[in-house]
């Protein structure tokens, strides 16, 4: 019984982690941007979905769509306000651009976080679940929405895989992540590749945000922990490696769930953080890092 409980809960939470971290690692892999406003974008999407359903009474499906749209808009706003001006700046030295972008996205995330707190207070909000009720599998009573969440996460990750590996545009994105200069030599505008990646990222972060809002609820306080969690997962998996992030998400998800059930919920996050420290010592490039 306990085994099945850990297996089911761990699977759902790990799928959420995987989806949350995938966009983050994609952006880094392709454009070298460590987007520290990641948590704020996810929370923004969830709060928009909550507000649409609760304040405007639009129902769970339209609410979810509005949430995804908010994630999309916030991602583009991040790119155009915090990232692009620095990437194109002639005043900032190339070697310093990375740290400038890091700082800019961090501050932009704080701006979004404060705006959410002022507009909607910092009480946690939950997104209206699309699937209601519970179901018993292997003697474990689980909300149906938990299975739904895991399924949607994998559909989204599957679509991303298809896009990157089977479409022309996706292959260009992949190529840009390996050799940006080579892609420009082929006549593909690098800036249009970046736009594609930020669009994909916005959708992924939006979906992850609303699923998180359905499953666990979010508040402006979640911004920091969500960014930190995505950051730890991609560092563990190897910066820029999407498959590494997926595996790392499952390692972290199961380690946390196992700790919560077998030791105590109070120590939930500690073993995963210890593992991260150990991996950083022994394999600084992460489990599946490319460099």
């Amino acid at each position, binding site marked *: 019984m306990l085994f099945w409980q850990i297996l089911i*809960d761990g699977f759902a939470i790990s799928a959420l982690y995987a989806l949350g971290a995938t966009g983050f690692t994609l952006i880094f892999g392709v454009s070298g941007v460590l987007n520290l406003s990641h948590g704020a974008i996810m929370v923004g999407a969830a709060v928009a979905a909550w507000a649409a*359903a609760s304040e405007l009474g639009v129902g769970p499906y339209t609410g979810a769509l509005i949430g995804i749209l908010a994630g999309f808009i916030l991602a583009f706003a991040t790119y155009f306000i915090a990232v692009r001006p620095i990437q194109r700046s002639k005043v900032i030295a190339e070697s310093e651009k990375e740290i400038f972008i890091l700082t800019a996205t961090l501050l932009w995330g704080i701006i979004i976080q404060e705006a959410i707190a002022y507009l909607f207070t910092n*009480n946690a909000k939950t997104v209206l679940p699309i699937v209601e009720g519970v179901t018993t599998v292997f003697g474990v009573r689980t*909300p149906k929405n938990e299975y739904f969440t895991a399924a949607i996460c994998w559909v989204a990750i599957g679509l991303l895989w298809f896009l990157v590996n089977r479409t022309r545009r996706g292959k260009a994105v992949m190529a840009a992540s390996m050799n940006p200069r080579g892609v420009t030599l082929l006549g593909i505008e690098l800036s249009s590749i970046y736009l594609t990646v930020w669009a994909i990222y916005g959708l992924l972060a939006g979906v992850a945000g609303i699923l998180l809002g359905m499953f*666990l*609820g979010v508040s402006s306080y979640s911004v920091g922990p969500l960014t930190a969690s995505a950051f730890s997962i991609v560092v563990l998996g190897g910066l820029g490696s999407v498959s590494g992030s997926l595996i790392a998400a499952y390692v972290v998800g199961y380690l946390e769930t196992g700790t919560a059930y077998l030791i105590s*919920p*109070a120590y939930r996050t500690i073993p995963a953080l210890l593992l991260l420290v150990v991996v950083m010592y022994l394999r600084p490039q992460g489990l599946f890092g490319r460099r």
Partner: protein
Amino acid sequence: MISLKSILLASCAAVLVSSAAWAADPIRIGVIAEAQAVAGSSIAPAAQLAAEEINAKGGVDGRKIEIVVYDNHSSSAESVRAFQRAVSEDKVNAVIASYISEVVLALEPWAGRLKTLMITPGAASDVITQNIAKNYDQLKYTFHGYLTSTSLAGLVCDAAKDLLVEPYKMKTAVIMSEDAAWTTPLDAGYEKCLPEIGLKVVDHIRMSPDTTDFTPIFNKIEALKPDVMITGISHVGTQPTVQWKSQQVPIPMFGISSQATNSTFWKDTNGAVEGVFYNAVSGPGVAVTPKTLPFVEAYQKKFGNFPSYAGYTSYDDVYMIADAIHRAGGTDPDKMVDAMEATDYVGTIGRIAFKPKSDPNPHALRTGKGYITGLMLQWQSGKQVNVWPKELAAGTTSWPSFIKLKAASN
């Protein structure tokens, strides 16, 4: 046509008249609160409302009350800076501060050092008043305008006896509380009073306020098969409530759930709070005293929403401070403390008087019959319905579909 000159003359006359009406120095009350938190956001508006009402009636001995607001972002460090600024630069005569125990505990020594009267409208830790007992001369400037955690535990037990143990013959309970300064004495109070009313404590779960996934906690509690979960939650609220509903945990949630006191909680949780019980000092539609409903009405008219629990107390605090200054004959801090100690005031939450210097909790509110008794409310179909005590009840207990209970008489 009115000339510009006559407008100017009229404006000057108005300024002269109004300044003549408030010839004496204003009384300044600093409000240090958390503008973004649901519970904290009512503190400053409620204080402002009380000040306006007092000023409309001529102020305190001809002196106007001015409220100076500081947003502390729920941070102890920012609160200390605000307190220092309030006293040294803005020259406040008293401070109303925060609903967070950690914040009030950080400010308490500063109230002593800067000899400035401070009252908290919502923090609950007993340590606040225990500190006063240990070092009265230094810390006597702090007053506890809300119930201590030990008092809260006692009131929850009183309600549980009448609402759960007697009608449903409940026998076992699990305490579920967040790990924070205010819950240490609360849990000790629960551990002591629950067995006294006939509820055996089968486990005691303290969780981190950062907990987001409550699934393992609820599964553990469910395996213990208690009759009820007795809660002590304030920093967390939405997540455990929503997961309790989505997982359909068949055990009632009863106790303290600060976020549930707020009228927006139904929307925050998409209605998952249906059936949850929470202790409070006031609630919508509950005429605790003749002042309660007029306050709620005035607050709602002015700010468009209902006050949180700390709003009621903050409103009362301004009146109590004004009354103390009137009785002290001015704003001398030591005389104000003496006057506050002699407070006997009927506010929106009941009859307010402070425990004396000789008590282990000096400056804590007196509770029990004749003073503050507290309420137990339950969310029912989107409304907060008071179900206890009987004389103030607006309805009876009702249960969500996933909780099956049998009344003892059936």
